[in-house]
Structure formats: C-alpha cells, structure tokens
C-alpha cells in the first residue's frame, strides 16, 4: 500500500492529494490496530478440519426411515411409476457426468439432458440379447394408467382418455383395450431390507457355524455358507465352476427351499445348467465392467452374482 503511494507520488498517475495519501497510509489494518500480528506464511491447503458427524439414529427415526423407504419401494413397484431419471444414465458415463454438472442455458438445453432411447443411444456391450435379460425389469417410460381404476370426475376432461388407456399415439388402428374389471392392486412388497438386516443375516450365519452345525435345520445354512465361501475362493482361484454346476448345487437349492423359495426352482436349474460357458461370458459383460475382472473373466467365467 505504502509502496503504491510512493509510486503515485513520483508522477505515475498524476499528483495524489494529501488527503488521499493520508487515508491510504492510515487505513491499513496494522496501522489501525497496533497489536495485530502479521503472518506472512501461505495458508495451509488442507487444514485439519473436524468433520461434524450426525448422531446415531434413534429408534423412532429408524422406524420413520424404514417406513419411508418401504413406501418408496412400493411406489416404485406401482403401475404409475415411470423409470428413474435418465439424464445421468446415458450409456457413456463420461459425457453423462459432464451433462449432469454443466450448466444448461434455456429450456431447450435443459430438455436435452433427459435421455432418449433411440437406436443410436443403445449400448452395444449390453444390447445383445442374453439369457439374463429375462430377469431384467424393463423400465416403464409411461405410467400404466389402464391398470387401475380412477375417480374420473376429479380429473379434467382432457385426461379422461389417458385414464382409460385409450390415449395411443396417433394413427394406431388397433386400440389395445383391457377386458374385465380394473382393480386397484395393493403392493405385495412387505419389507425393505435395511443394512443391519443384511449384515445381521451374514453374521447370524457365521455365528451359527461357530456354534456347530448340529442344530436342527442349520445344515442347509451351513452348506450354503460353505458354498458361499468356496465360491469366494473360487472367484480368486478360478475354480468356482465345480460348486455352481452339478449335483452339489442342486442339493443346496433343494435344501434351502424350506425357507427360501420353490417356485423358482426349475428356473434356477435351467439358469445354473447353462451357467457353464456361454452364458457367463455375457454376464461378465453385463455387470463387471471393471478392469480387474477382465483378465480372469475370459477363461473361467465361473461365477455370477
């Protein structure tokens, strides 16, 4: 500050008035406050910072969150739910990330953020039909309004056709009409898994194993756990196939059936029978796009998840 005043005095920017120089000299912080200590060091880039952490959830809050999550799960299961947001899920992750964060100017650009599924946007790696696509839920782009009854008198007249499911895009000759009465379906989802449940489940099993498998009914669990652990090892060593295909595996499925499910049994069998070679190569493309899996995945492909 004082340096600049000096330069100005020499005639760089015209003659400064006395008053201005006085202000400039006196209004610097160390002139006003004499006991200030100037610290010339550059400030630390990442100073230690005590991150505040939220208190643990109380029981009541746990319950509220669970109810909310269950409600959300049921909502997403209902016929009126449309797919989750598309604009962060476009196939090429890099561009989508930038699309989500960059600013959009005007409504046009904002609208372009939302994904459109055309032939050009299909991801060539996952678009080849595979067996596992059977299990995939196809996201709904339009709500299935025809699936349930509405109290139509409370809707504006222009929406009535849509409510009946007769609002097809123009020119389609054959209107698909549902026959039979429409019913309001109650959601069949009755539980939402919490993280604790997931962890507890695993822990409980481990605990049971420690206590010894002689407890009645624990046999199937033990076996499952054994298989699980070997599968994990197999994943590392590339020996997992033996456990997943073959009789051992079927046995496990049956044994587990009491508490798990039976109706899917045959489906599972088919699923596992084919798990030998071709199918799993696809599964690899499906899910793990990580590089680490690339090396081992080529030859064995023994596990699915």
């Amino acid at each position, binding site marked *: 500050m004082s340096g600049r005043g000096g330069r100005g005095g020499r005639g760089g920017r015209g003659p400064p008035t006395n008053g201005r120089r006085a202000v400039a000299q006196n209004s610097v912080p160390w002139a006003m406050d004499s006991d200030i200590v100037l610290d010339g060091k550059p400030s630390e880039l990442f100073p230690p910072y005590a991150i505040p952490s939220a208190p643990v959830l109380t029981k009541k809050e746990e319950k*509220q969150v669970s*109810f909310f999550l269950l409600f959300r799960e049921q909502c997403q299961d209902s016929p009126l739910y449309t797919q989750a947001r598309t604009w962060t899920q476009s196939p090429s992750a890099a561009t989508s990330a930038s699309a989500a964060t960059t600013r959009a100017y005007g409504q046009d650009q904002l609208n372009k953020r939302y994904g459109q599924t055309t032939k050009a946007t299909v991801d060539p790696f996952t678009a080849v039909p595979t067996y596992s696509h059977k299990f995939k839920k196809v996201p709904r782009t339009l709500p299935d309004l025809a699936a349930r009854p509405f109290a139509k008198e409370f809707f504006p007249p222009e929406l009535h056709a849509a*409510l009946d499911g007769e609002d097809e*895009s123009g020119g389609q000759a054959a209107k698909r009409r549902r026959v039979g009465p429409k019913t309001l379906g109650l959601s*069949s989802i009755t539980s939402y898994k*919490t993280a604790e449940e997931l962890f507890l*489940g695993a822990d409980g099993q481990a605990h049971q194993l420690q206590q010894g498998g002689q407890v009645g009914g624990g046999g199937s669990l033990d076996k499952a756990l054994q298989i699980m652990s070997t599968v994990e090892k197999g994943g590392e060593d590339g020996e997992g196939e033996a456990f997943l295909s073959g009789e051992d595996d079927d046995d496990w499925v049956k044994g587990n059936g009491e508490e798990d*499910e039976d109706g899917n049994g045959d489906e599972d069998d088919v699923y596992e029978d084919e798990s030998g070679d071709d199918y799993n190569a696809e599964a690899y493309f499906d899910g793990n796009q990580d590089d680490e899996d690339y090396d081992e995945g080529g030859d064995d492909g023994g596990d699915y998840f």
Partner: protein
Amino acid sequence: MLVTKPVADLCALLIDELHGELPSRIFAILLSKGRSTLPQLVQYTSMTPRQLRHGLAVLQQHNLLFYHVDPGAEFAFYEANAEHAYNLVRTGKILEMIDSSFGAPAKDVMQNLLLSGQTRISDLVAAYQEKIEQANKEAAHVEDDDDFGAEKNGVNGDSHPGKKAGPLVKSTAHLNSIICRLVEAELIDVVHAKTFESSQDILKTVEKEVMDKYFPAGVKGNKAKVEVQERIAEGLRKVRGESKSLKRKLEQNGTAAKRRKLFAGAGMSNGSHDEDMDPALDPRQVIRINYEKCLVDLRNRRLVQFATDIFGETSAYVYGVLLKLLTKDIPRCRADAAMDFGEDKEESEKDTVSVTTDQILDNLKTSVDLSLGIGKAERRQVSSVAAEKIELFPPKKKLLIEEAEVEGEASADEDEDNESSDESEYDSDYKAPTANGTNGVNGTNGAKVKFDESAAPKERRLDRPTQLRQHLLMLAESTQRFVRHCGPNEWTVDFVPLMNALREVELDSVIERTCGRQGLRLVRILRAKGKLDEKALPNVALMRKPELQQKMLEMQTAGFVHVQEVPRDLKADVKKSFFLWFCDVDRSLSRLLDTSYTTMTHCIQVLEALRQKERDVLETTKRSDVRGREKDTMRKEYYERYSRFLECERKLFAQVMRVDDLVSVLRDF
C-alpha cells in the same frame, strides 16, 4: 408456502424419487413457469402431448396438482401443489405417527391410501378383499408351501420365511372401522368438486358469488367492506367444510365418542365387537390423506418432545394427553388469514378451547406413576398464590425474547419450584439484565429443588389429581408457557407464543452449533440490548476486541447478526460513522429455512451420485432373480458394496428427515 428455487428443486427431486421421472419433469416445469395449459406445457418441455397427459394424470392422482377449467374452455389450467409435494418427505413420519397412535393395521391402510393417491372407497375395499381372500387361500393350503405367496413377491424371500401371521387387516368390516377412525380423527378427508381448485381460484369464485348475491350495486363505505369480507370468509369456510362431510355424517350417529373411547382404551383387543357398530361408508366417496391435520398431530409430538427435554418424561406425558384432548378439534396449525376473518371475533366471545383437569385424569393411563418428575420444595419457598394464578386471556403480542419478563416480575419475590435447576447458569445470567430491578435476585436464588428420594416418602404420596395438578402448574409456570391456566382447573395452550419460543430454541441451538457458546452469548446480549455500537460491544460482552470482531464477522456471514451503518454527517466518513450490531430473529429464521431446503436437496443429490457410483451393483440387485435374496446370489464384495450403499441411503434420508423437523418448526407449526 413461498416457493423458492431450493424448494422447487427439492420438490422435483422428491417426486422423482417416489413417482418417477416423467411426473417430476412436468412438476418442475409447472413450478418454474406457473399456471399452464397442455399446449403451453408441450412447448416448454418438448414432450409429446401423450406423455404429458400421462404424467399429469399421475400427478393429479397423487394430489400434486391444482387445476381449473373455465366453463366452455378447451384446456384446463394446471398448477403445481408445492405443499403436498413437500409433504412427501414427511411420509415416513406420518406413517410412524399413525402406527404408534392407531396401530399397525391403520398404518397399513394409510400407506395404501398414500400409495394410490385419491381413492374411491369401493376400490380400496375391493383391493383389500382380494388380498384377504388370497391370504385365506394361502392359509388353507398347508404349511409346506406357505412360502408361495412370499415367493411370488420376489422381495421378502428370506426376510419373512413364512412367519406372516395373516394380513394386518382381517376383514372388510375391520377395514371399514379403520377408515371410520381415521376419518373421525380428520386424518382422512373427502375429495369434493372444489378440492383441486387452487385457493386463489376458490377465493375468486366465492368473491364473485358474494358480490352478485349481496352487493349487486357495488360496495360503499367501510361497514360494507367489512361485511363483504365476512361473507367471503363464510363462503370459504363452507367450501372448506365440504371435505369434512364424511366426518359429520359419522358423528351424527352418536356412537362416535363411545366408539372412540373404546378404541383408545383397548386398542386392537376389541376388534369384532366394535366393527359392528361402525356405519357402512358410502362406497362412492373418494378419500385422500389430510396433511393439515397430520401436521397438527406431528406438532403435538414435537411439543411433547420439547417438554421432555425441559421437564422430563412424566410431565411430558401429561402434556401429551392434554394436547391430544385439546387438538381434537383443531383442524390446522396456522389459521388462514382470508378464511378465518371474523372467526376470531366469535372465538374471543365464546371461550377458547380448554380442557379440565378431570378430563386429563380420565385419559391418563393408570400405569403411569405421576409422582415421578416432581421435585420437592419447602412450603415456605412456594408461593401458592403466584403458582395458582389464573390468566384468563392469552398474553399480548410481544417480542420473542421478552416473554420471560412478565413471568419474572410477577414472581420476583417468591421462590417457586420452577425449573431453574434445568436452566443452565448461563441462561439465568443472561436474563438477569432484562428484568427489572426487583428481579435482581433471580439469578442467584434459583429455588433448590430437591430430588431426595429418601427424605419423606410418605409426604409425597399425594393423591393422583393433586400430582396431576402439580405437573400442569409446573408446565404453566415455565418461561416457554407450555400451558395456560385459563380458569379454575381449566387448561389451554396458546400455540402461537409457544411455537415462537420453540423456534427461538431451535435457532439458538443452530447458532451454538455453528458459532459456539461465545456466539450464542453475543447473540443473546444483542437481543437483550437491541442495537449496540461496535465500540460498546466489547465492554458489554467483556471480550477482547479482535476476538469479538472475528466472532461477529463469522456470525454475520452465517446470517445470525446484522450490521447497520449510520453516518454521523453528510460526508459519510467511514471512520466517523457508527456501526450498529443487531440481530433480527425473523430474518435469521428465514435464512435458516432457506439453508435447510438447500441441505435437503444436497442430501438427495448425494444419494443420486452414490447411485451413479454403484450403478453396476444396483442394476444387479434390480434383477428379478437376485431381488430378495441378494445374499445368496451376489458375490461377497458386491454384496458388501450393496449393503454399504443401503446404509448410506438410510443415513441420508434420516438426515433429510431431521432437517425437515427443523423446517416444520420454522414454517408449518
């Protein structure tokens, strides 16, 4: 509710979370562009009309829209209902509240009602009928394949291995009685022709009607203007009352009170006996959730929580019972200015709602020991005159902080068994300068309340009504004024000043969290002194100047204190002008509210980012063969990643709900 950008973002995110992308997109546009017709929306969103019609139908079904059709017009005007959209975040709380006060079956019904939006009763009954029949069929099958139903769901595979003890709602009669109870509690109301008109539209139609009917020649003079307003308010009230038609019908039956009492007492045990007494509901009626009343109940819970923090559980329990009785007939937390015009007059003429001690006593559970939570003070230390003082009228409007003063003056000389032991020393220090000279003792005396169990067990064995009275008197005496003793053995609550006190407590805790005790102390000094010059502040606060300045700057950035520059002369020389620090509570509160919205939005955005990060895992868990038995089918590392994600999700939503607690105190209660 003022819709700012953070609120709009938040609402769109919430709808996206619960109802999907299409409705959320339309809702965001409606919020930013305001009232629009379908062709306008087509232009804004560049979506097809068909998509828009579907999206609008979903929004309308979930009560998230207002619409208005002019007679003869081709298109309807749509408007976003931001309040209901915001209330989506409270779903968990509302369900939990219903679960704890009405039982699990009622929660199930409410959840399904929320899930399907506005619903015709007959549809709801049919849906339940189907479910019950299915459950019965399953029960008829033997246990060996009782997993069948669960397996079809695909979700609850191993979490509920055949342990389901039948459906929660046992029969249609049971369903009917549950709906009746919820309607009586006003938690469910009826959808009528005007429900989906926005409040401005309703106001306009009512205004027009009134003008046509009563004042065809125009309005002249002040008297006529007042009359117009009264008539309009009356008309609005009539429209509002329509949604309560079902409740009125139920109450006509006369058994309502009795039925309610039975339910409150024994809960589920008296199932079939009661169901016969419930009248059958008109199956054509369309019902939906009434958020306003839900908010009243949530407010009660918040106040009980507040009382628990200050007095302890027993008094808070008593307070909860009192509030429950008192708010039975309070339909909403905040009165609507236009609608309640003229209602105030009636209210003040007749008595405000109050509850007698006997009523409370009848509703207390006998298992609660009322002797807990009351301290013992020596007789001469308690002034019974001051303690039993009856205040007929609600306190006049005062500034937030000065509420403590009047109480202090009235009881300056007598020691009471007030809760000064609960208040920190700090607290009373700060209040001392605000009160008058006579109150100088206040800081030091603080009646020593003895919680001495062994002292005199016989003495404290008072009868139940007396103990109850003591709890109530204690609540009435507090500086926050939980209760007003409005007549002999009659009690009421003045919600407005009480909520102001609660708001201030919330603000104080936020200040303490962000700026520490020092900051809070400075804010309190400023509140007590009004505006203070920068140079005078160090002397008053007894702090060193540099420290003080730093603190004040920190708080100014956070928006808790504000500074005003007053020049001494025309030149407005900086060195000569005064800088006055002050704190404006309202401004701080509105700023806090805005920050809260942003925080909530960020939480949901973080969740979205997490989802993006764990995309491959989440895609796997959505597969129908993996869903419900993730543990068996997923590889361990993936499984761990999945469970970690779930934990994060829970934490984030919990955070959102906590922030919503603050928002509801600041805005809605």
